[in-house]
């Protein structure tokens, strides 16, 4: 029996917009186990972003329970949640969110800067390891503006890995990339997943979602479908079928 990383029970989230209360999440029950690769899907307004914000401890639920690796997030303070994010979570964003004019290595080191237990030397070693994992060890002194979109996203993935999180949360991580680069990024995620990393991936692209192991479809604040992806597809295999343009040659 695999360890449960994320457990959500009857989770609700309301927003007060002027006079109107918007029910973004209306009673979500969810369990994600170690080693799963979950895609959260849904149209805009379906509540998937709200779900991700709560899973990412950036937001608090209105009611219900959320256990992240055994920690109950619901009644934590701002600072406690920040600590939890630093220790347990890795984030990958649609627009990479790398610090400009800062080398890839320093960008990857950033989460460890907020952990006082990690010394400078260890921090650098961990960051280099993470960059090696995403295949960018040779670019570690490049600044974001010297890297392509795919490379920037791989730096971002390395940054999400560097603190050895229990789960990586990706928010439309392929949204800004072309098809081929998207598959390259997905192949990186699949590789991480095959090494045992738990990944939660928000996307609205079915093509991307079928590269994961489980799809949760959101609509109007409910999970309307929970599909186990039966036939596993490898991003690497799809990549081989795509035509290669000169632009992509290294």
């Amino acid at each position, binding site marked *: 029996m695999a360890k449960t990383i994320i457990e959500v029970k009857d989770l609700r989230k309301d927003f007060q917009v002027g006079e109107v209360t918007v029910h973004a999440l209306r009673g979500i029950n969810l369990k994600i186990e170690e080693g799963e690769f979950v895609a959260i899907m849904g149209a805009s307004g379906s509540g998937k972003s709200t779900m991700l*914000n709560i899973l*990412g401890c*950036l*937001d608090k639920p209105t009611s219900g329970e959320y256990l992240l690796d055994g920690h109950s997030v619901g009644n934590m303070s*701002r*600072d406690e949640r*920040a*600590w939890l*994010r*630093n*220790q347990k979570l890795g*984030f990958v*964003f649609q627009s990479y*969110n790398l*610090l*400009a*004019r*800062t080398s890839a290595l*320093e960008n990857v080191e*950033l*989460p460890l*800067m*907020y*952990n*006082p237990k990690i010394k*400078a030397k260890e921090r650098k070693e961990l960051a280099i390891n993470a960059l090696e994992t995403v295949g960018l060890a040779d670019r570690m002194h490049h600044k974001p503006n010297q890297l392509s979109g795919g490379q920037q996203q791989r730096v971002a993935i390395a*940054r999400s890995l560097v*603190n050895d999180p229990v789960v990586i949360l990706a928010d439309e991580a392929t949204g800004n990339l072309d098809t081929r680069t998207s598959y390259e990024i997905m192949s990186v995620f699949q590789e991480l997943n095959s090494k045992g990393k738990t990944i939660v991936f928000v996307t609205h692209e079915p093509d991307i979602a079928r590269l994961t192991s489980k799809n949760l479809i959101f609509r109007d604040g409910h999970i309307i479908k929970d599909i186990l992806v039966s036939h596993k597809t490898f991003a690497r295999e799809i990549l081989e079928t795509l035509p290669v343009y000169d632009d992509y040659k290294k």
Partner: protein
Amino acid sequence: MNFINLLKIAINALKRNKMRTLLTMLGIVIGVASVIAMLAIGQGSKKSIQEQVSSMGSNMIIVFPSSQMRGGVQMGSASSKSLTIDDIEAISKNCPSVKMASPEVRGSGQVIYSGKNSPTTLYGGNENYLGIKKLSVTSGREFTIKEIQSSAKVCLAGTTVIENLFGSSADPIGQYIRFNSIPFKVIGVLSEKGQNTFGQDQDDLIIAPYTTVQKRVLAITHVQTILASALNEASSPKAVAEVEELLRARHKIRGDQENDFEVRSQEELVQTFSSISNILTILLGAIAGISLLVGGIGIMNIMYVSVTERTREIGLRMAIGGRGKDILLQFLTESILISVFGGLIGILLGVGASQLVGKIMNWPTVVLPQAVVAAFAVCTAIGIFFGWYPARKAANLDPIDALRYE
């Protein structure tokens, strides 16, 4: 987050915007430099005034007649003849805090020697006169008590008078000069004193025995001013009180009546000038302080711009585990670094500028260490004060909104 990481993050952030950092710093640099330079100039002028006044004799006491009521009519003070030679003798005898005393009588007129003439002032005093006024004779001799008793027509001349009448080459000792047609034999030349604080030439004078001036020049029997010298600077207020008491008794002034004379000490004068130059220093410092304040507001402005511009960075830092406190400290550290480095450069520049002013314009400047320490402390305070609000704004951002900020 530990302190070294904090510094590293702040320095990296500042380095990413070098030009902006330098320009913001410039506001503080100019502010601090001008505060230090202005205070140095103010302090310098205070010191030089004090030195000049005390070179005139800081333990000197001056007694001069004040206006009197005579039959219900208020008289002008110059016409008063209330001070006499007997008063001076009484002061020397009965006031223990007074070292010595001298009358002073004076008249202005024209001095003539062969074909040349120039306007000057003739002063009359006794054998203590030079000592009280801190004057000395460079060549020739002082007049003797015997010459005073006999109203001898001898005089000591200041260097300006000598130059006007004799030029620079000739030896004036033993020559006869005429003051308002009365001949005086020059027996000594006074040491040079230069200009006083008010730009008055202190060498444009001749000094003769008071008896001579009283009888032969002014035809009076009273004295215009009494000069006395206290034992030392500290005893000068006591000496003033003693002289006042004595003269009230001698002039038969009853309890509630006003004095017909006034006693001033040079020390009071020093204090008056000191307070004037203190006001000057405060004024200059305040004006410079305003520029420091403007520099501080510049920091605040730039920090606000920086917070807005880096909203997404703040969101990211929060997402990866930065607490509100970490973000607050980061921005606060940035503004403190700007102000402290600006302050250090400003101190160097201010000290340099005040020395330059001292050299080039020949103004006395004194850089007080307290001023430097205070300027540095104010700088740090400015960094904290003006960095606080932008930093708090950053720390209070909602990470979700910050991450989405366009």
